[in-house]
């Protein structure tokens, strides 16, 4: 039996599917508990439902992007393992890099089914798990102490104040780093100041930004507040359509 056939066999699907099902149940448990606790402390049902709706629409397109990661890795690692990794704990940008690096460490010239062996796969799979498990390990040991300390630091959870501003600033920093990388990729990606690098990410970000401006205008100035929950997903579709247009035209 070929290695891919073995990696796509029913027992491997069962192992990976079982873990994914466990995590899905976990999500439902956390969700129900949070919803009930929200009601118990007097939170408005509509606001909680809005948070759920906006998060669902928000996650739809990135999830399809993640599915592409599964497809990309399935050619060398089979389908069940990338399915597990990208449903649970993994990250799209991380999995391919670590799988490639791990393959090189076990003596493969590149990550491919042609060079894959059962032992090589098991080693790569374990390394992928070990490398990215630390966030979870830290959560087990320090989440309680850390969040309690943060609560005490923000004036006993009073909200507002600098804590809120700091979180917004951190997020602005995150977005700025990525947009800066798109600018740098275009200006110097094809040679220092050659302006010959890939400009698609910059065009996509710009199109999504303009679309969001449109959504905000409609939502705030035209009384279409319901659009707010779908504004990120809608803007992303516009941005991604811009990528298709750039690909077709240039």
């Amino acid at each position, binding site marked *: 039996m070929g290695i891919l056939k073995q990696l796509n066999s029913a027992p491997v699907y069962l*192992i990976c599917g079982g*873990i994914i099902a*466990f*995590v899905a149940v976990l999500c439902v448990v*956390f*969700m129900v*508990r*949070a*919803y009930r*606790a929200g009601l118990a402390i*007097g939170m408005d049902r509509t*606001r909680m439902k809005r948070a*759920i709706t906006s*998060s669902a629409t928000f996650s739809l397109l*990135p*999830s399809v992007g993640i*599915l592409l990661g*599964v*497809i990309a890795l*399935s050619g060398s690692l089979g389908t069940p393992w990338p399915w*597990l990794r990208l*449903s*649970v704990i*993994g990250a799209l*940008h991380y999995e391919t890099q670590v799988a490639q*690096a791990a393959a090189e*460490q076990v003596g493969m010239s590149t990550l491919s089914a042609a060079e894959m062996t059962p*032992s090589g796969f*098991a080693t790569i*799979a374990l390394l992928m798990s*070990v*490398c990215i*498990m630390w966030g979870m390990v830290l*959560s087990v040991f320090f989440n*309680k102490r850390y969040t309690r300390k*943060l609560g005490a630091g923000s004036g006993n959870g*009073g*909200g507002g104040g*600098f804590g809120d501003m700091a*979180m917004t*600033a*951190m*997020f602005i*920093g995150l*977005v*700025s780093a990525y947009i800066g990388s798109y*600018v*740098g990729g275009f200006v110097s*990606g094809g040679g*220092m100041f050659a302006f010959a*690098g890939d400009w*698609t990410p910059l065009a996509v970000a710009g199109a*999504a*930004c303009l679309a969001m401006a449109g959504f905000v205008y409609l939502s705030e100035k035209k009384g279409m507040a319901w659009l707010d*929950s779908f*504004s990120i997903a809608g*803007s*992303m579709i516009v941005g991604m359509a811009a990528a*298709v247009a750039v*690909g077709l035209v240039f």
Partner: protein
Amino acid sequence: MKEQTVFEKYNARTHVIGRVCSAVTLVLLLGAPFAIGGVLGAMPDLGAVGRAFLSVGLVWTVSSVVEFLVYTPMLGAGGGYLAFITGNLINMKIPCAVNARDIVGAKTGTPENEIISTLSIATSSLVTILVLALGVLLLAPLQPVLQSPVLRPAFDNVVPALFGAMAYRYYRKNMTIAVTPLVLMSVLFILVPSLSGSTSFMVIPSGGIAIAIAYLLYKKRRKEAAI
């Protein structure tokens, strides 16, 4: 007072459930390669894993520590446990939770924020699990469509589309905070293009600069309010 007690009980229980579930997931994820190895008739080469970890894993370990320190305050307790179990933090969970918090107007450090963050991360994780499960089920018919040369650029640019949209939402009300990190990061990536492979690390200095500017603004506003 009663609400406070209810929330404290909820929070205490969240830590118990979160710790147990994280530990169980950890065991399952580390056990899976051995279980699959059993099916394939070959076990992982632990020596190779150790060597490979030293050469590539340490970078990701540092990254995980930084992610834990930076993102836990944004996610809260329940959201934090779930996000570190389900992954895809930067490209999905963090923006998703921040967006949900913004839409309902929850403030950092409040019980509301804790609830909204947990609802958001749980929903986001379930959507991903569902989409991937459907995708794997329909892999044969979907593969040619999703990988078609025409659509491929769209899915290669999901993250720029996400951050472009988020940029407008956050920059427009905080231009004073946003200008400096945006300009500095752009200049840095222009001068050192090889940094583009380490963008997730560059979030730290960029975020640090933004927080420092936010702090100066906060102090200035407080001083003005006091006068």
